[in-house]
């Protein structure tokens, strides 16, 4: 997929997605004349989230800036996240994820990122829009080779609050995996992937 198209796709996703969600929330708000409950998070409240969905390999990039194909097909991704609310808008947490994707030689690439995460939650009841960034280690396995690499995962979600405890929605997360190679630096690459997953969230 051409890199420019990928950037455009991400920007379009973000800018179509948020205003539409906000507009929908505002419309609902205008129609409602009665006072409605809204979610308030306080320090110490926790959230557990389970996500699963699509994994899109985008491109590899060398540390010199050259782009190349991944030779990977569409895959699957999932994650389990624990979050601790610091305030109504801020949350920190830990996430353990996983993905799989097949290459053109029919081998399967696996990744298992373990990240710490910070989120800023934008509230438009009954919707929440966490914007977050996670960073940590990523265990990458392909046939006989295993690497431990650094990963950064920025992303955003849209959550519909079903009730005070449960929420359901969609995650869009960018995976940026750095894979330098000390013995031959020109073989080092940065992996760029996109995760689009459905999520179920439980607050307690």
């Amino acid at each position, binding site marked *: 997929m051409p890199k420019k198209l990928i950037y455009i796709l991400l920007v379009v996703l973000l800018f179509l997605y948020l205003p539409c969600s906000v507009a929908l929330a505002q419309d609902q708000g205008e129609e409602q004349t009665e006072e409605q409950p809204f979610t308030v998070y306080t320090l110490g409240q926790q959230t557990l989230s389970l996500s699963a969905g699509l994994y899109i390999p985008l491109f*590899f990039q060398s540390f010199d800036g050259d782009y*190349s*194909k*991944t*030779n*990977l097909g569409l895959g699957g991704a999932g994650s389990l996240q624990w979050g601790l609310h610091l305030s109504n808008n801020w949350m920190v947490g830990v996430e353990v994820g996983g993905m799989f994707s097949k*290459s*053109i*030689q*029919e*081998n399967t*690439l696996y990744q298992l990122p373990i990240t710490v995460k910070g989120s800023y939650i934008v509230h438009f009841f009954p919707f929440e829009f966490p914007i977050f960034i996670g960073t940590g*280690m990523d*265990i*990458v*396995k*392909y*046939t*006989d*080779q*295993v*690497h*431990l690499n650094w990963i950064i995962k920025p992303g955003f979600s849209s959550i519909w609050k079903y009730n005070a405890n449960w929420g359901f929605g969609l995650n869009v997360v960018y995976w940026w*995996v750095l*894979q330098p*190679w*000390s*013995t031959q630096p020109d*073989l*080092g*690459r*940065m*992996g760029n992937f996109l995760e689009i997953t459905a999520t179920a969230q439980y607050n307690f």
Partner: protein
Amino acid sequence: MKSLKYLFFVSILIFLMAACTDKSLSPIFFTLETERSLTEDRGLEDGMTVHEVVKVGGAGTRYFAAGNTLYTRTETGNWTPVSPPVAGALCNTIEIFGGDLYAGFFTKDGTGLGLYYTDPVAISWNQVSDADIDNGQINLLKAVGPTYLFVSSLKTDGSGDYFLYYSSNPTVADTIDPVTFDTDPSGSIPIIDIEYDGAAYWVIAGPLLYMGPENNLQIQATVSDPATDGGKPFGGLLYSSGNILYLSGKDGKLWSRSAGVWSGATSISVDGGVQFTQFVDVTTVSGNILVGTEGKGYYRLILGDQTNYERRPDYNISALYNGAINCLFLDTSVTPEALFAGTMNAGLWRADYISGEWLWVQE
């Protein structure tokens, strides 16, 4: 205290993960970036076993592959089965000698059907008529030396032992003679390989190594050194275009013999657990010697030096990288040069030598 324990175990996990990285292999993302499709689909099953590949030249140029069923194809065509001399017969040994295709057949229950030959273009099987072979189970066919076809077969006396025979014209009845050993290989030890170094014939049978002068195939004397560890069998022999005799062992060892001398310093133990098999000389193409293994693909001996080696192919060609190689066959009569690898249960592979690399596809 609990959090310290968790931190400790996580640290150990991180350390173990980091230790699994093999710096001798390419990094994962770079390997993925350079991948190419391996499927060429010339009609063979991906999971089949291929014992031997040969090629006949001339007007009817074609390849033959013994994969229990005997197959054939032209240089550009797809593989098609060749009808055996007996319905349902299987084939595991083939050789081109004197312009004819020779093949050993057996039944599905393992009973030998003897040795047959045919014109490679107009297939019409004739059985090699000789009491020594009769309907024996053939396990080795090799054209070696100036003018001989060597045949290894189970003895027809019911002993379960293998023996070695030779002939300069097997199409003529009763012209196959036995090779004489100072100590016969016994105990059902198969004859594995034979090679000619310009002055003598070398034979390996299990852990036994024999050498006999060119002018007298009636005497093959046991050679006690080199020897494998623990009585493990030898794997294969090769006399290279560089006038070096190579010997492999299923104990992970490789030897070379130059100027008539086995050099003890050149015998090494490679990656303990590697079982070496057959060699192929690709020095005219890439300058190297290749040797197959049982379960670790093949090894490249760089410029023929068995102390300078690396495991091949790339690890992402996992079926071949972890494959058991039955045979390696080089064809230098095509452009680019082609290298065939017959495997156990992983099909037949072909590599074309392009831009200094062997680029593998599965046939």
